[in-house]
């Protein structure tokens, strides 16, 4: 589903976000990106969603080389990726329904279909009945779940999440991760960037460790347990 082949990303301010990083995520897999803040987790996610383009190397997402994708094809490309943010990036003055419906509206989905799918997505995150609430009327955990509902409402084959539990207490964090696990079980490929190593080990899923823009561990399929322990 995702292949990074010797990818480097240098930002305009000279900071090296990623250095010669190679990694691979199989279709239907749920993978964690871990490492300290600034290790390059967010850069990997941005490169996947084409929010940034690599300085060097090749990024392949869903069989497409993102480097050669023309700007006008980026919107269609992004519609096949659900993105969850730490600050959830909800539109504060729009009700929950509108926020979740946005990816469908953008894709030109018929209104009836939008209604059905928004309710289904809210049901999946346990927020059915809160359609008319404004994001700020919800708790932080609920806001994050609205963000997740928005990410999955168009049933994308790939879901990426940047520190989705960063602002949540441990119980809520586990709940969110379980939610992701359930999406994985129905075939969605999931990449979650997090610094919460405990949570990752609890779930027992594969982990890609980043450090100063480098992918740690020669064998990407089986990262060294020792690397996990170093925080």
């Amino acid at each position: 589903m995702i292949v990074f082949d010797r990818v480097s990303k240098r930002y305009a301010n000279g900071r090296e976000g990623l250095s010669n990083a190679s990694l691979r995520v199989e279709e239907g897999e749920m993978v964690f990106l871990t490492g300290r803040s600034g290790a390059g987790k967010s850069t990997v996610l941005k490169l996947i969603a084409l929010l940034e383009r690599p300085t060097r190397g090749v990024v392949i997402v869903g069989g497409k080389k993102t480097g050669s994708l023309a700007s006008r094809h980026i919107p269609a490309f992004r519609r096949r990726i659900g993105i969850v943010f730490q600050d959830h990036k909800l539109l504060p003055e729009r009700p929950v329904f509108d926020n979740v419906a946005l990816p469908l509206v953008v894709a030109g989905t018929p209104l009836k279909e939008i209604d059905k799918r928004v309710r289904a997505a809210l049901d999946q995150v346990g927020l059915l009945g809160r359609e008319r609430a404004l994001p700020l009327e919800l708790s932080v955990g609920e806001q994050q779940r609205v963000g997740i509902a928005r990410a999955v409402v168009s049933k994308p084959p790939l879901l990426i999440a940047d520190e989705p539990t960063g602002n949540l207490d441990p119980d809520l964090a586990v709940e969110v991760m379980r939610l992701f696990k359930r999406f994985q079980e129905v075939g969605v490929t999931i990449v979650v960037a997090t610094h919460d190593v405990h949570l990752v080990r609890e779930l027992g899923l594969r982990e890609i460790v980043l450090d100063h823009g480098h992918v740690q561990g020669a064998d990407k399929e089986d990262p060294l347990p020792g690397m996990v322990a170093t925080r």
Partner: protein
Amino acid sequence: MSLGLVSYGTRHVQALLASLGRLARNPFATLLTLLVIALALVVPLGLELFVTNARIATGGFANAVDLSVYLKTDVALAKAEQLAKSARARPGIARVELISADAALAEFRAYSGFGAALGVLSANPLPHVLHVHPTADAESAESLEALRRYFVAWPEVDVVQIDAQWVMRFNAILEVLRRLLIIAAAILGAGVIAVIGNTIRLEILNRRGEIEVTKIVGGSNSFVRRPFLYAGILYGGGGALLAWAIAAGAITVLAPPVATLARSYGSHYALVGPTAQELLILIASGVILGWLGAWLSATKHLRSIEPRA
């Protein structure tokens, strides 16, 4: 209709309604913008109405370009009739009226108020006069001058008077006003584009976050731009309607005194408002200028907003 077309239409209706809703939520700011646009549009509209009304008000005279050919007093009526006949045969002349000395005196007696005094005269001092109306294509200054020379050359003719100078001047003034109208429309049209472009720019900056999120979830540039284009169209069209309202108000205020003035000249002239065609042009101009201003602004400013997660 295909499903694609339906959803395309749906998206447009959604964008239109969203823009309308947004304008309605900020009534004061919207009204100010509409007012500025209306003021810019009402100036050319007002000039157009002024020219139209001036033409109508003077309609009876504007085409009354004619020559009065005064014959010498010793020319007999039969000779005058013969001259009138040969004048009628000349190209460039639509109509020739012969006003005989007797008819002129009778008219003068009736209307001048000197009736009694004129009775003292032993003989009629007035000459026969030919009123010559040129054809429409011979109303230019050169043709009139040619006609004048033609008549002056006749031995029976005493004086030729062209009654057209003020008419031609008047028409020239109207032509100047019409050119002014075009210039004003061009300048103020550019103003409308600038006002709407700037309004849309501020709107885009205000909604930066929303635009970023929309792009992240796969909104194309044209999707993001669409509501702004509709906002521009609504501003332009709304401004045009407001300009019409202002013009209609002005006409309502001006109509009674103008009617009074017209009556004092014995005319039944009444002010006319914009015709359906003028209204259509006004609204179409507003809509097109609004769309253009929004398009220029949105295309420029939306490009600079790319999501940086």
